């Protein structure tokens, strides 16, 4: 096998990204959808770190970006979960297909 490098990491990251996207598309449970989003965000972080390390190590932009992404992900997850819980209270379900009242 090849010596692992930038492209390997990019492959992992892209794969993870689209795994997350796939999950987001197919999961009906809101929490699992949220989890898929987390995967997506993590793949992005991986990108940032990989680019930072292999291409642009002169600055720590990538690193910082991923730190902030993690923070944002936390905030987003928190709000999302609050919303999901609230939704659960009113709908008694967190199946996304039960929350399709508004359409067309």
């Amino acid at each position: 096998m090849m010596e692992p490098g930038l492209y390997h990491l990019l492959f992992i990251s892209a794969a993870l990204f689209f795994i997350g996207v796939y999950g987001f598309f197919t999961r009906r449970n809101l929490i699992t959808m949220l989890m898929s989003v987390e995967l997506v965000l993590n793949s992005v972080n991986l990108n940032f770190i990989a680019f930072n390390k292999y291409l642009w190590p002169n600055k720590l932009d990538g690193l910082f970006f991923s730190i902030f992404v993690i923070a944002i992900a936390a905030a987003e997850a928190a709000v999302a979960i609050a919303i999901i819980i609230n939704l659960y209270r009113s709908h008694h379900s967190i199946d996304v297909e039960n929350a399709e009242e508004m359409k067309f």
Partner: protein
Amino acid sequence: MSGSTIIFYMLAALTLVSGALAVTTRQIFRAAIFLLFSLIGIAGLYFWMQYEFIAAVQIVVYVGGITVLIIFSIFLTQQAGELLPKEKIGRQVFSALAAFCGFALTMLQLYQHSFKQTTDQPIAPSVSNIGNQMLGVEDNGFALPFEVVSILLLAAMIGCIVIALRSKPATA
């Protein structure tokens, strides 16, 4: 093949396989656990790249924070052991196709791209460098984003409180 390479592939496999399982398993707790593994795998990759700080943050925030949050919310909203409803096969195929197309497209661009590279002196991602820059207000300082994120977290918290702790109607 060096040990580092082996470790890399193992981490990569861990990340991707558990990531894939996290979005496909029908048991929600397992999904959460697989997510956890995947996140840990990513943290491992950070370690592997010698970005220890970010790996630590990853473990603290994700593994320690978000996943726990998710698991709690699963407790709140789901009977344990209950299988997730089955997804429609058409949707699955279509989603997989879309995701794969996206993936292929992205990978194609990535592999065809000849990345430029800096020739400047690298900065070590050490904790002290990170700390200095994080609170720096000059060039390459990240004090402002830090403040912004703190306000965001504050706002998110308030939002969460209002929504999640909604009082029963007509109670003080």
